[in-house]
């Protein structure tokens, strides 16, 4: 699930639960999620995070 998909899902669910006021907070949290996922300490299964791997 991309961050964009997460945000769409979370906003839709919040609206379903009659919590439209969550949208700005969810948007702010989405920015944090992008930052978290983009962090270079994240490992990747294809090894693209390994600077020493031969490809």
């Amino acid at each position: 699930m991309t961050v964009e998909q997460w945000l769409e899902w979370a906003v839709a669910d919040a609206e379903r639960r009659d919590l439209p006021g969550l949208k700005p907070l969810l948007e702010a949290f989405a920015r944090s999620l992008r930052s978290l996922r983009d962090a270079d300490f994240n490992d990747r299964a294809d090894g693209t995070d390994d600077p020493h791997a031969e490809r």
Partner: protein
Amino acid sequence: MAPTIPTLSVEAFGRKLRSGAIASRAVTEECLRRIHADIDAKNDGLNAFISVMADEAQSHARLADEELARGIDRGPLHGVPISVKDLVDIQGLPTTAASRVREGHVARRDAAVIGHLRQAGAVLVGKTNLHEFAFGTTSEESAFGAARNPHDTTRSPGGSSGGSAISVAAGMALASIGTDTGGSIRIPAAACGIVGLKPAFGEVSTEGVVPLSRTLDHVGPLTQSVTDAWLLYRALLGDHHPEALGSHSSGAAPNLRLAVLRRYFCELLDNEVRARFDEALERLRAAGAQIDETDIPHARDIAAVYVTLVCSDAAAYHAATLDRVPERYSEMVRARLEVGRYVLAEDLSRALHGREVLRREVNAALEGRDALVLPALAIPAPGLGAQSMQIGGSTEPVRNLMLRETQLFNLTGHPAISLPCGNTSEGLPCGLQLVGASGQTEALLRVALACETHLS
């Protein structure tokens, strides 16, 4: 209430008590008088307390004096009036967490730290106001009304342990017990001009304390001095006859090796906070401290790691009541808790990994050094109601600014302490933060003691 009313440190109280110059009853009565005066002042007061333990305090103060007269001395906290953040269980009293969600609650037993304080002979004067469920940095969102800064009542005392900080700064207690999940001891300590200690993670029991995040929660003291912080810290570990802090000190200022965390930690600072911080560093250098600079390479990932962890933990704790009694939460606290229910497991895992990376980087920064040094709070106490402010050429949320300097050390568990380091031109306190090696709270306090006289 004017912050210039003379206040007594725990250490000074102990000397005067044992010399017969004062009695616990008299000092306790004065604390209770100030508390009641603040309550009676209503909207003109500081709103530091949620409940007052007047009868118990008077009874225990009398007992403390009688015991001392019979030669029973429980240690440095004997007869000392102390306040407790209303997140900590005291048997027979409600633990409100400043929330209507907890209406009707009565604690069945003392929290572990309260047991230690009772054994130490401390006199508990009351339970202090806080940001609801500790989930905020200003102590404004409280079912009992906003707490106010004793230096400027139009401003926040910081949070979430705002009432605790006020009680010490305004002489309503000689010390207080708070909690710190992202900075909630150190932030109000800096905002109110007192000392706030976050011990190393796991040292002080959180049993009987309402959690915000079990991954990040710490319990610690707010005091008027580093020596007082030491005395409270040792008491919270069950040591009621501690050695003097300075007795093994190799941390005299000329021997200190400190490293400033610049870059991320100094790029969004109020100009006067920056000035007081730099002046404090110069005073430490003049005293002989060796100060260089270091970095936390993944500092820009701190906030994302922190918010993912704290929101997940808080959402888990609050899920049932969010479903059952959502209307009892204050609006913004409820909203932040609800956001946490949307955190995916894969992102929580990323955050946990990020925490380990940051922990290694803080350890590396501390190599060969006695402590790291940085501001405790990036801005002076914000105005009540302020949601954002202009700083460094951009508009930033107040909450993010207030957490910026402190939350890293909740993630990594390193001990950290905030010390006063001067005031702004408007008389608002600024705080300097020292961070010690993992698990080495005592060593950090020796460093803080060596620095303290040069900062005041």
